[in-house]
């Protein structure tokens, strides 16, 4: 219990620090959202209209910074993230909520798949060290993970989308589709997700494979594995229950951390495939 409470406390502290930084940093940077609006207008925004927009965006409110900060904390706690500047006048919550399912769906599923597949290949590769799988898979997968996401994505669009025309290459769904929980819609979504998912998969699987394989190799040299072999246990049982279960621990920690990054989205994949996720919104938020 105390362990959980300590962890929760530490989490809240980190959360508070992140929120505070998120409040102060943009306000310390030059420029304000009304200037970005002026840019959209190429100078036609003058006088009363501009002042009005500035009021809406909360610029020049004459409130002290501390008072603004207090309101900000209160808003964060109640989930009121305010009005979006880039997607004015939609509320931030709505904007993010519309994009999150796509990111979680694509990026989340791919991360899990990459972890499972990569770890699996690593286990088998280490078990039969020097065998066919071990000689081919880890080096190949490490090479593919060194290739930039967007290049793989573009190659896929070129080959599978345009030349062979096997799969759609733009968007999260057909532009004429409306979201509905029908088999046809879900099939359409999956179809659109295949190319981005594959591109993401082959570029991320390498790290899991390599780390798992290396951990397995050291674990296989342990005494308890030798004991299991001496006892005459079956090979799959030793491989999985004795060696892999211990070797996977570092990978598991990495996996837990990478799940956190899923929410940030895969900017490059979304950019190349025109996928409606949160990653590109992050880019726009920073740029504006």
């Amino acid at each position, binding site marked *: 219990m105390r362990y959980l409470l300590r962890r929760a406390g530490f989490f809240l502290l980190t959360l508070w620090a992140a929120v505070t930084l998120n409040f102060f940093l943009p306000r310390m940077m*030059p*420029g304000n959202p009304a*200037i*970005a*609006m*002026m*840019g*959209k*207008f*190429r*100078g*036609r*925004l*003058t*006088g*009363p*209209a*501009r*002042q*009005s*927009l500035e*009021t*809406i965006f909360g610029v020049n409110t004459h409130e002290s910074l501390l008072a603004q900060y207090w309101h900000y904390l209160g808003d964060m706690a109640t989930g009121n993230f305010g*009005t*979006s500047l*880039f*997607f*004015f*006048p*939609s509320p931030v919550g709505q*904007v993010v909520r*519309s*994009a999150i399912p796509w990111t979680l769906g694509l990026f989340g599923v791919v991360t899990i798949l990459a972890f499972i597949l990569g770890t699996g290949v690593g286990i088998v590769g280490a078990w039969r060290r020097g065998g066919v799988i071990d000689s081919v898979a880890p080096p190949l997968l490490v090479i593919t993970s060194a290739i930039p996401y*967007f290049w793989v994505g*573009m190659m896929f*669009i*070129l080959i599978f989308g*345009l*030349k062979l*025309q096997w799969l759609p*290459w*733009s*968007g*999260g*769904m*057909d*532009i*004429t589709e*409306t*979201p509905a929980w029908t088999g046809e819609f879900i099939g359409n979504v999956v179809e659109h997700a295949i190319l981005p998912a594959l591109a993401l998969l082959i570029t991320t699987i390498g790290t899991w494979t390599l780390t798992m394989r290396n951990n397995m190799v050291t674990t296989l040299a342990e005494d308890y594995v030798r004991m299991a072999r001496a006892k005459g246990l079956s090979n799959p049982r030793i491989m999985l229950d004795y060696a892999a279960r211990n070797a996977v621990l570092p990978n598991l920690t990495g996996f837990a951390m990478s799940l956190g990054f899923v929410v940030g989205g895969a900017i490059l994949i*979304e*950019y*190349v*495939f*025109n996928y*409606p996720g949160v990653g*590109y919104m992050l880019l*726009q938020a920073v*740029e*504006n």
Partner: protein
Amino acid sequence: MRRIILTGAAALLAAALAACSSGSSSSTNGPSGSANGPTGTLTISNEQGTQWNCSFNPFNPGNLGEGVTMGQVYEPLMFVNTLQNAKTTPWLASGYAWSTGNKTLTFTIQKNVTFSDGTPMTAADVAFTFNLLKKFPGLDVDSVWSVLSTVTQQGDTVVMQFKAPSVPYFYYIADQIPIVPEHIWSTIKDPVTYADSKPVGTGAYTVSPCTPQNITYVANPHYWQPGLPKIAKVLYPAFTSNDPANTYLATGQAQWGSQFIPNIDKFYTSKSSDNHYWFAPIANVSLIPNLTKPGIGDVAVRQAIAYAIDRNKVGQVGEYGEEPGANQNGIATPTFSAWMDNTSAAKYGYGYNPAKAQALLTQAGYAKGSDGIYAKGGQKLAFTVINIGGYSDWVASMSVVQAELKAVGIGLTAQNLAQNDYLNRLYAGDFDFAYYAQTGGPTPYYEFRQWLYAANSAPIGKNASSNWERYSNPATDKLLDSYAITTDSAKQHDIVNQLQQVVLSDVPYIPVTEEVGWFQYNTAKFTGWPTQDNPYAIPAAYAYPDMGQVLLHLSPK
């Protein structure tokens, strides 16, 4: 839209597409040529770099710039055509008249107009719309109430009284203000933040439905012009980057494009004999000097720069030949050729003349230093130019200019910035030179006013709305004010001639290339596109309300 991030994508895809057959179109088209009712589905390709927020509020600058609402969903009183010398045709108003020395403007409103929910539109809605702008200044982005004093309905006319004659504001009042239904907007507490996701307007199209990835417009069954629109459905997908948008056009999945496509002949026109493009110039992308800085404040230096740049070359290299070179008169030709003052142009003879540039500098007392850069009294002619890093065509244009200026002994270093940072510095006057364009308007006066009017400027450190070079000349202001009070064409031409002479002699800015309306179109399934011979509207999907006019003229084959 023009934003291209520096990837090799376009080149890669171009090379590959050159080898593969043109893709199948996935757009569904109904049977063409049916006698009754609209048919067909048109797809637009205009990359906005964002997904749709499904807000159709026609006063919101973001929505307007995307071309999603004004023109096709909401309509203005009259249509003013930039490409036909501000030719004005009726839209929601059947006619207009100036009176009492250009201080009263009366519009006669069309009868039998209904909103898409079946409610009749009357002059009351027009008066309501304008008074809504007065009540909520955040909606009045064109500042029409800076010149209006009252707007009242009188029967089926709307009478607008001006504080003083301001004839050019006709464009903003008649062409740029969407008429909204009083029975809906009078109930909205804060129209500035109103999303208006299910818009009710008089326009030819209604929204059904809008998702973050695509807007589907369907023909308005209550539309007040009989037999229009002819196209049943218009799809407007959201593109976050240029490459999918350009590829949609090349494969024929989209028929109406507003994209900047590098190497357009290889990538787009060669794919099908039905693929065409036409770029109509509307304003000038210019090198903007900060007139308050030493060295730059010397008119001889600016004139030298104007002679040192080969504008056509910049257009060829930087813009792939898709933007013509501009001229120092500041007149975008051939759109506004009728306004060009050829006499003064010939008198100054601005053109690519590096020898003359150097002669001018020497005459003004500058001497070339050992580093090849001219200097006078310790002031070296070495400057920086800020630019938007994301616009790769502008970055390329500036590198051409940089090389040409170096050849005449003026140093120019480019600083490519993120857009928001760039705009900050541009408005505040924190630059030596900048590269940007004005919005312009239906005649050259609008662009000149944006560049030259002192009230549009601001001291260094404060934000200037359009006169970023900080040009201030009371005589020029008087000229601009005198244009505003007259409707006489001869007087207007005379004033614009004098304005050109200001730009020629004072060189407050240096036009480099002409900003065009990006336009690609496919004639396989649709006809009625604007062309050079029939420029009935600015053909870009982001031009408002022109894109509404285009949709009213198009029909399936």
